[in-house]
């Protein structure tokens, strides 16, 4: 656990792999998302195309902060690409 009360570790699951990043509890989730994508080498698509979901599958607002979302140390989040779907007849 970090000694800095404003620092928080989040674990992003990207295509089945855990990517742990440190972020500030007051910084929007999109900052941690960008960091996780960069560290995992998933830079082929813009970060905005990646959805952040909780372990229960709930879609999270990337502009919300960990503090506002009550995220705890080592909370696990899913990063998945926005899905194109349907339209087939």
């Amino acid at each position, binding site marked *: 656990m970090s000694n800095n009360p404003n620092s928080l570790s989040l674990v992003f699951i990207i295509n*089945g792999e855990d990517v742990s990043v440190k972020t500030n509890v007051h910084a929007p989730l999109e900052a941690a998302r960008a960091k996780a994508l960069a560290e995992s080498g998933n830079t082929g698509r813009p970060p905005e195309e990646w959805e952040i979901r909780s372990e229960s599958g709930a879609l999270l607002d990337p502009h919300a902060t960990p503090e506002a979302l009550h995220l705890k140390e080592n909370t696990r989040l899913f990063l998945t690409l926005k899905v194109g*779907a349907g339209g087939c007849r």
Partner: protein
Amino acid sequence: MRLDPAVARRKFEREVERVETQVAVLRSWGCFVVRAAYPHVDAVFMPRKPMRLLLPVKSQQGQGLIVLPNPQVQFALFEQPALAGRAFGVRINLSDFDQRAPGVSFHDPFTWELLPYASLPLGQHTDEHGKTLRVVLDGHPTTKRPFLCLRGTLEYHEHPQHSGDEWALWRDQCGLFTTLFAVWRTCVEGARPNLMLQPNGRPFIVWEMEQVA
């Protein structure tokens, strides 16, 4: 273009390994990988959201001397904790992965026979604008079978109506885990079955899309 068999197997093993490290997550979804033998990974999904029973209640015909025109049918909702949606099997075909996208087919979890469309879970996807689309469809033009119409699946990228959305654009970000995640999110987590008893006495299934945002 076919992938070198040795390369294909290594990629298969890498994908399976990634899923194996997330077994606790999968279990929390009700997803159980029951077999992993190249090029197939078989998984069983067990929905657990309780089914709801909707029974019509006597609508208010009037208030005193006032007769209400066209009184609406109202329903009382009863959650059935012992009942949930039907378990189903999914086979992920990783032939020539990741040169080709993962293929998805639906199976009876007891016999592993292909499931007919009428026995499939309702697969729904809600986009960021709140628009809901059905993504489990019948009659793929090539396989002639039910299919999951989601980006990242073989059936989507090889469907004539998606010829402009090439798998090559997405292959780096999609794999076995993302495919299982997509099945869970659209066919299990995002849909709850409601059994509605209509005023005419006939039962009717209403699939309720959970608002997960």
